[in-house]
Structure formats: C-alpha cells, structure tokens
C-alpha cells in the first residue's frame, strides 16, 4: 500500500496521470464492489487481498475514514481492481468461448454447420477440379490458388476404398485379425490424413505458405490419378500398361501437387525436401496399392491353371521353419565335422 502511494507520489511516467484520473473519477466504494467480483479470478494473492479489503470495507463504508486514507485505499483498489477486472474479463471470455466450442462439438447439427463451408461446391467446380488435378501448372513464381474444399477429396477417398476392396476381393487377399473393409478404409484414410499431416508439418518447418485444409484438398484431389490407374489395372493385368499409367497419370497428378507446393515455398532446400518427400510418398503409395493386391492375382491365376496346386495366399513368413532349417544345417555341419 505504502509502496503504491509512494510510487504515485513520485510518478512522473505518462501513465501516472491516467491512474490518478481513474482514481479520482471513481469512488472507493465502487472499486470495492468491483473487487468483490474479482474474487474468482486467477490472481494468487487475490483471496488474501480480498479478505483485507472486506475488513477495510467495513471500516471505510461508514465514511469515517479520512480523506487521505480514502485516497490511498482508492488508489490501491483502483490498481488492483483494474487488473482484476481485466483478468476476470479475459478469463470470462476464454471460458465463454470454450463453452461455446464444446457445446458446438457435442451438438451434431451444429457440428455439421461448422463443416458446411467446406462442402460448399457445385458439380461443375468438382468436375473442373478433378480435371485440373491432372494438369500441372508451370507457374511457380506466384503462389498458386488451392481450393480449400473437402467434398471432392472425401468422395475420392471413398471411391479409392471401393476400388481397393474390389482389388482385394479379386486377388483373394487374406487378412488375418481384420476385415478387408477395415483394411481398405484404414489404408486410404490413413494415407490421406497421415501424409497430409506429415507434409503440413514439413511445410510448417520450412515455412511454406499452406494451410492444413489446403493440404488435405490438394492431396485428396491428387488421389484421383490413383483411382483411375487402380481401376484400370485391377481389371486389365498388364505390367507394361501399369508402368505406363503409373508414370503418366500418377506422375501428372504428382507433378500438379509438386508445382502447387513449389509455388508456395521459398528456397532451394525447402522445395527439394517438401516436394521430394511428397512425390516419393505419392508414387510409392500407388505402387504399393497396385502390387500388394495385384501380384496375388497372377499367383492365383497360375494356380488355377494348374489344378493340383494350392492357391497362393498372403501369409506370414514361416519363421520357425527357417530357424529349423538353420539348426538342421548346423547339425549337418556338426555331423560332417
């Protein structure tokens, strides 16, 4: 208190007059009332202060205190009251905002309203974006426009799930401890969300100008090439055809994404890092999806041609057998010796 008054007396800072005005303008009692409101704020010493204020209020409320005391109290209360009010206001706003967010997240219909802007598209727009996902734009000096939209990507991922399911079924894939459906959904959504987050993280590290929404949209539309290639090659089994399509369609859709990222990144090393990672992941994913569920088809076809052969299946490698062989060999070696 005394420190406060001392500072006031010796205060030559520009804000001193502001404090004085504030105190002069407001009476001590009103400040105390404000103090009462601040009892719930997060200041640590507030409870103790509040207690003291209460006691003093009982004394000062009778207006028996001298002018000087009142001024002192007033100043103290004014300072603390101002801080408390500010803290309380901020805390209140944060609390209100948090409450609003939580109630929104829990309410399904409100939740839909949050997502609705991302689904605000016309069929023509979706069609043109699908076409554009195959056409790389060579302009990398100026940031390219990336539409932040989720309808197209989401539908493409579901289409990829259906195509993958088809590939798995025709190839007779056996998945232990899981269903085909779950694996297909997990693979597609895992790739979409996982790679988007990873590239976004990299982009954040190298300071590229891209948001998570744009990344999701970019990668989602990039899956259109995958859908086309896989749909064709799951039904027409030519290795040559696959490699041509892989390089052509997969390469075009990858180039499109790379060009968009290039235009939004500055510097050689960041560009190389970001685009190298993305193109590597994207092209490898297509290879994986194709050969993981395609090679088996050929194995199955071979086995169907030979009537007595057992169908080839994807099973875990028989590790005990290998070790058994190894031990046998060891024994043989020992016997030889």
């Amino acid at each position, binding site marked *: 208190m005394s420190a406060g008054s001392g500072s006031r007396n010796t205060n030559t800072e520009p804000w001193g007059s502001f404090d004085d005005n504030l105190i002069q303008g407001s009476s001590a009692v009103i400040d105390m009332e404000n103090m009462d409101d601040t009892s719930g704020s997060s200041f640590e010493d507030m409870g103790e202060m509040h207690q003291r204020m209460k006691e003093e209020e009982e004394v000062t409320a009778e207006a028996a205190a001298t002018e000087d005391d009142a001024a002192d109290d007033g100043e103290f209360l004014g300072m603390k009251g101002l801080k408390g009010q500010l803290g309380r206001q901020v805390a209140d706003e944060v609390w209100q905002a948090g409450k609003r967010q939580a109630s929104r997240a829990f309410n399904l219909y409100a939740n839909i309203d949050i997502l609705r802007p991302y689904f605000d598209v016309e069929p023509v727009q979706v069609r043109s974006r699908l076409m554009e996902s195959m056409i790389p734009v060579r302009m990398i000096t100026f940031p390219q426009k990336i539409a932040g939209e989720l309808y197209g990507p989401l*539908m493409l991922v579901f289409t990829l799930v259906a195509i993958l399911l088809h590939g798995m079924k025709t190839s007779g894939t056996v998945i232990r401890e899981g269903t085909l459906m779950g694996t297909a959904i997990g693979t597609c959504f895992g790739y979409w969300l996982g790679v988007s987050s990873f590239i976004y993280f990299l982009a954040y590290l190298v300071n590229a100008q891209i948001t998570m929404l744009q990344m999701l949209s970019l990668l989602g539309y990039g899956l259109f090439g995958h859908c086309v290639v896989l749909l064709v090659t799951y039904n027409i089994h030519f290795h040559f055809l696959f490699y041509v399509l892989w390089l052509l369609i997969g390469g075009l859709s990858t180039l499109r994404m790379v060009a968009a990222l290039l235009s939004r990144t500055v510097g050689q090393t960041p560009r190389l890092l970001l685009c190298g990672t993305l193109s590597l992941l994207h092209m490898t994913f297509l290879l994986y999806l194709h050969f993981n569920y395609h090679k088996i088809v050929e194995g199955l076809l071979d086995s169907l041609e030979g009537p007595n052969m057992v169908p080839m299946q994807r099973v875990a490698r028989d590790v005990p057998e290998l070790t058994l062989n190894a031990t046998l060999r060891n024994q043989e070696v020992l016997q030889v010796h």
Partner: protein
Amino acid sequence: MAAAEEASRPFAGLSDVSISDDIPVEGDISVPVGASRRDDELSTLDEPVKETILRDLRAVGNKFVHVLYPKRSSALLRDWDLWGPLLLCVTLALLLQGGAADSDDQGGPQFAEVFVIIWFGSIIITLNSKLLGGTISFFQSLCVLGYCIMPLTVAMAVCRIVLLSVSGTVSFAVRLAVVTASFGWSTFASTAFLADSQPPNRKALVVYPVFLFYFVIGWMVLTFSPSQ
C-alpha cells in the same frame, strides 16, 4: 432508452396488426384430434399382440411397395421406421454369409462386414447430404436408403437360386443382368425420394455417394459364390 427501443423493434411490425376489441384474445387451445387419439391409444393397449405386429408389418410392406413403384410420394419420408431396413440388411447379410461359412475362407463377405457397410454407408451418405444443404432429417434419409436396398436383396435371392441350378457363363450373364437391373433400380428409387430435399444444382453431388454405395453392395452380390 435506446437499448429498450432496440429491443422492442423486432415486434414493431406486430404493433401495426390491430386486433379488434370484440374478438377476445384469450381462451383454451383445444386440439381437435386429442379425443380420438386417446381412444386409439386405449385400443392399442387392448388389442391382441398379433394385430399390433400385423399392423406394423403392413406398414413395412406398404413401404416396400413404395420402393418398387418409386412414385414421388412422401409416405416413405413422413413416417419413417428402421424395421424394414433392419430386416433387409439382415436378410442380405445372411444370404451373403453362406459363402464364407467355411472359417478358412475369409475372402467372402462376412455378416458383420455387410452390416457395417450398409449402416455406415447410409450414415455417411446422410451426413454428406446434410453437409451439402439437404433439408431431410437424419432418420428419414437412413430409412429411405435402407428400404432402397430391397431390389438388391431380391437380386441376391435370385442369384442364389441361379447358382443352385445353372453354372458357368450363363449363370454369370444372368446374375450380371439381374444385379445391374436391381442396382439401377435401387439408385433410381432412392434418388427419386431424396432428390426433392436437395438443392437442385447439387443433385449430382448427392447422387454420387448413393451410386457408390449401391455399386459396392451390388458388386458384393455379383461376386458372391457359395463355398463348395
């Protein structure tokens, strides 16, 4: 004062509406159907269980007819139920189950898989249509999508009969024809019911997931082959 005026402004339009003094602005709000409704409820308490079940089945059957003749009526939308979809879904899943009865062969569709595809697929389509600005309620959409699986369930039954009798290319050709027809029927019927609730310029966006959904189910029906 300004705030008070601001607050009273929304009702400013109402203040112009004058109600003549000879009309009393008070009284009971009576619902005319209240009395008869009470009678209905009393009668459902008293009636035999058989009648209740039969009435519900008749309602479900009535909706089946609506799907078979997809004319633009709102009966399927107005009083929705999930009994029909459940019935169809379980039937389809059981019919598809036979292929994977052998525990070693996991390639065939399993009961849970079919069940999950149908329900989660419907939910996703419904959410999608809501996101695109559709005005249909959640369960109405689920009901319509569920009832519109019926052509595919019928196709499944036909496929099993065909598989029992003939085999080879003829069997595949017949099954392909049946499944294609029923797939088209399902898509057409559900679109006819759902289209009204969508903004006219976005029908294609709503129809695409529906198409994909029935396509996956139809493809599952077509590739079904019973274990030997």
